[in-house]
């Protein structure tokens, strides 16, 4: 009867168990992969269609945002549909009862599921990239870095996949508890979309850690089938981390709400005097004193040459120029997060736009070149590099890119200066780039560009450009300055270095330096201040002329910023904010301060915590005690060993209400039934009663039970010893 040829064919190419699992998963879930692919593609297309899909920034923003929503949805779809249809009891039995380890079965599902998820999300992203790379489609350059935002969104979908597996495998009694594990992936995806991860490696790390934790938790449920004993310890730990993390994320907005700066019951206000130095329009150093409830008082401290003058009150001034903090420890200017298209193709603002008409300019950080794109054709029309500007239609033996040259790629930190002039830092060279004129000028080669940390436009009224008087006769009008940690270089608008000023006093004694620059005559006004903790020590005010000579170096009183003090509100409110804060919070802050903060326990965060009202801390303590007791009682109800009860009590003491929620989500509410012996309630999972020590009794017998095999009954009848008074007729068949 059997088909021999079929049998031999089967025997000849018998698949391995792994391959069998993968093929089965692929075949059963391929339809969902296709569905996800269509959904993501459709969503992305619709988003692009309804936006401006020819604009570089808008294009990539639409692609990234559609994936930020679509990727989690696809992950949830695939994760759920890999488990839910098979969870019907006997199909699950068909899946699980076979000579294969649970790790293999789970791994097969996960590999197949993740590969489907990747296909459903990466293919549309690559399609979007391919379309953008075609010249004429998008009005800007293409760089593979532009896809990182999309890949980041895809990465953050992975925790959703395992979270849904965790949800579908976990038998939770309450709907809230059942859906709880999805909270953390939502929060992480939001963090990513809000550009809180500035670097790609941060996004990869966080998503990998989250995904791995959820995967371990889901595997534990798969392996243990809701039995704590059968669940690997690492998976139990992962499940606890998942649940606790989600609970904290949910409760944090509640508990932190009342912990924000407006503490319920008190308020932080500025009190006392504060002082601030300003430069007047005539170059004098003025000191403004602010007292609450009184008008500001202005005193002239030094003249325009830095000479101390008798403090003379001046009439209220309408405006003054604040000194710009300068020569800070080297810092990088703001770098766009990896999700932003500006990171890879920074749109260069050019003004006035009518000068250029129909061109968009970008700084391609990867190539280190400025690229001009036609708004009409969306094609590259020219490249501006250190060698100058070259039009795209200019033919030649060397490529356009090579002819224009490269500023140092990837390391450029342009600062916008003046009207369309841009400083480009290229290795050890500085260039003044004028988009408007399509010209590049090499600036003073003696400055190490790698050292420059600030580029300040002196034409802005709020920055160090006090009292600029335009003198058209002089080409020595300071236009911008470049600052490093030890030097400040002042340049004219045509790129000539006018003056270099070195740090005058040691950083250790005077860590903070503020500066203003005046023109006609060119003067540099510097205020050197001591550390905040030594504010009683006077500051030094130094004025330097256009030849770098000290005009004056005087001592001036230190300026104080206003103190913040907590003032109790005279309102009759019930102070409840402390009840929501776990004991772990102040402990965590203290430990963090001791280990990581430079000022240790003097850190502002610690001060803020310790300056809270006593009522606040009392509430925390009361709440912690109540939660600790509750935790102990719940553990006793679960009939846990005494050691576990104590551990849960300590845990809930520190974690507070989130700890109680974790306990209920993790362990569930134990079922107890009355003990048949002592009538007190006892857990059903324990054989012996915790009160009377009696085991659960055997089921009551009613005399109809038939156990064992015996012929004794038949023998009695046969011998006639039944003792019956009436004849018994045994009816034979």
């Amino acid at each position, binding site marked *: *009867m*059997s*088909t021999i040829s*079929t*049998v031999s064919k*089967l025997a000849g190419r*018998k*698949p*391995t*168990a792994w*391959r*069998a699992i993968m*093929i*089965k998963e692929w*075949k059963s879930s391929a339809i969902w992969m296709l569905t996800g692919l269509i959904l993501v593609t459709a969503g992305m297309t619709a988003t692009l269609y309804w936006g401006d899909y020819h604009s570089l920034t808008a294009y990539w923003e639409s692609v990234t945002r559609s994936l930020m929503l679509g990727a989690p949805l696809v992950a949830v779809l695939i994760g759920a549909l890999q488990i839910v249809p098979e969870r019907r*009891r*006997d*199909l*699950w*039995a*068909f899946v*699980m*009862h*076979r*000579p*294969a*380890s649970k790790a293999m079965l789970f791994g097969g599902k996960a590999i197949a599921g993740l590969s489907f998820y990747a296909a459903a999300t990466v293919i549309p992203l690559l399609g979007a990239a391919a379309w953008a790379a075609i010249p004429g489609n998008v009005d800007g350059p293409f760089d593979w870095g532009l896809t990182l935002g999309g890949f980041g969104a895809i990465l953050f979908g992975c925790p959703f996949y395992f979270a849904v597996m965790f949800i579908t495998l976990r038998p939770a009694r309450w709907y809230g508890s059942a859906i709880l594990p999805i909270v953390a992936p939502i929060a992480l995806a939001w963090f990513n979309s809000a550009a809180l991860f500035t670097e790609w490696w941060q996004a990869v790390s966080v998503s990998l850690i989250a995904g791995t934790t959820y995967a371990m938790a889901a595997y534990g449920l798969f392996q243990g*089938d*809701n*039995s704590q004993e*059968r669940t690997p310890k690492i998976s139990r730990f992962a499940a606890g981390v998942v649940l606790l993390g989600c609970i904290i994320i949910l409760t944090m907005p509640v508990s932190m709400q009342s912990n924000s700066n407006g503490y319920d019951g008190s308020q932080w206000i500025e009190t006392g005097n504060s002082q601030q130095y300003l430069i007047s329009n005539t170059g004098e150093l003025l000191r403004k004193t602010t007292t609450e409830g009184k008008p500001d008082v202005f005193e002239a401290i030094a003249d325009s040459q830095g000479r101390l003058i008798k403090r003379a009150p001046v009439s209220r001034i309408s405006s003054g120029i604040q000194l710009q903090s300068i020569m800070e420890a080297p810092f990088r200017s703001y770098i766009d997060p990896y999700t932003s298209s500006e990171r890879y193709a920074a749109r260069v603002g050019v003004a006035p736009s009518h000068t250029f008409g129909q061109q968009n300019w970008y700084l391609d950080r990867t190539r280190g070149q400025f690229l001009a794109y036609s708004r009409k054709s969306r094609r590259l029309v020219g490249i501006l590099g250190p060698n100058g500007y070259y039009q795209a239609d200019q033919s030649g033996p060397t490529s356009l890119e090579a002819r224009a040259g490269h500023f140092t790629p990837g390391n450029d930190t342009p600062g916008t200066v003046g009207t369309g002039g841009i400083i480009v830092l290229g290795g050890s060279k500085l260039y003044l780039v004028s988009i408007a004129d399509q010209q590049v000028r090499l600036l003073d080669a003696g400055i190490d560009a790698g050292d420059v940390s600030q580029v300040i436009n002196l034409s802005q009224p709020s920055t160090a450009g006090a009292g600029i008087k335009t003198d058209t006769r002089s080409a020595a009008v300071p236009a911008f300055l470049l600052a490093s940690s030890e030097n400040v270089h002042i340049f004219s608008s045509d790129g000539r270095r006018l003056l270099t000023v070195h740090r005058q006093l040691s950083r250790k004694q005077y860590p903070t330096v503020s500066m203003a620059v005046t023109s006609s005559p060119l003067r540099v006004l510097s205020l050197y201040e001591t550390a905040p903790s030594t504010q009683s020590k006077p500051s030094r005010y130094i004025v330097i002329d256009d030849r770098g000579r000290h005009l004056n170096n005087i001592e001036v009183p230190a300026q104080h910023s206003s103190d913040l003090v907590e003032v109790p509100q005279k309102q009759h409110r019930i102070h409840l904010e402390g009840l929501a804060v776990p004991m772990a919070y102040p402990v965590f802050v203290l430990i963090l301060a001791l280990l990581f903060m430079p000022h240790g326990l003097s850190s502002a965060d610690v001060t803020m915590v310790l300056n809270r009202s006593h009522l606040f801390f009392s509430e925390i303590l009361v709440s912690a005690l109540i939660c600790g007791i509750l935790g102990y009682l719940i553990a006793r109800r679960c009939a846990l060993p005494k050691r576990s009860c104590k551990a849960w009590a300590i845990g809930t003491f520190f974690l507070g209400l989130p700890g109680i929620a974790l306990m209920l989500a993790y362990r569930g509410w134990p*079922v107890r039934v009355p003990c048949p012996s002592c009538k007190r309630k006892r857990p*059903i*999972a*324990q*054989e012996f009663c915790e009160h009377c020590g009696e085991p*659960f009794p*055997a*089921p009551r017998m*009613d*005399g*109809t*039970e*038939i*156990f064992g*095999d*015996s*012929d004794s*009954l*038949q023998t009695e009848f046969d011998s006639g010893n*039944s*003792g*019956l008074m*009436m*004849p*018994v*007729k*045994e*009816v*034979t068949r």
Partner: protein
Amino acid sequence: MQSDYVIETHRLTKYYGRRCVVDSVDLAVPKGSVFGFLGRNGAGKSTTIRMLLGLVTPTRGTATVLGHNCADLSPEVRGRIGYMAEGHHVHEWMSIKEAGDFQSAFFAHWNNEVYHGVLDYFGLKDSAKVKDLSRGERAGLCLGLTLAPEPELLILDDPALGLDPVARRSLLQSMIYVTRAADRTILFSSHVLADVERIVDHVAVLDRSVLRAQCSLDTFRDRIRQYVLTFPGTPPEVPKIPGLLHGFRSDAEMIVTLANPNPETNLILARLHPETIQETPLGLEDAFIDYMGERRERSFFMRAGDGTEAAV
């Protein structure tokens, strides 16, 4: 020391919430036996089977299968246990060939002759899709998938569920032929008592989560007796007899079905002073039905003098 039992449970209990669905079951399935696991719907048979296979975690108690703790069955042990669940679930998108390829990939030993023998018996073709099969054909496929690895222990949970008589007979016959191998043990739950009678040699009966019987088929048959007592007039109330399964009174007779009758039982019956007491032979099916049915007394009187007609 190797046990004579392939399945042993000790106070095996399962709760769903507060509801006890399996209560302190002590099961012992002898090696080499064909063991019928009987009970009404909702008695707890399937739950017990799932606990034996480690698919459901017991609330209390222990169970061992082939000497291994059910909670920790290794892949090797699972390879020695064949399980056919009620409902005959296989992925519907699979073809018969794909189902065979999938299942065979996991087993070191796969008897293609057995597999295809069963398929041929049910007239199944490799290219057919599972979703297009009738219930009987699907049962045949599942049986083939279960028998082909030639497991030491077969656990069949209501394998004939939903099958018509012809398909049921085919299934049963194929089971009989294949399971004739020595030392193969079968645990087989069913509602079709005629099938049970044909092939099992031991039975266990689960009644509302409690194990009420566990013995050989002959012993079971032997321990259930039915007596017909005739009376000149209205029969008296059915007395309280140990082991009474149910009693029925009509106009002139009383029929009592008893488990474990003994001389004391006969004495009690004799004290009712019937005209005659006759023992009526019970078929196994009737014995099972009476054993597993409601344990109560019923009456049905036709005579007008009683003025009542009780529902049976």
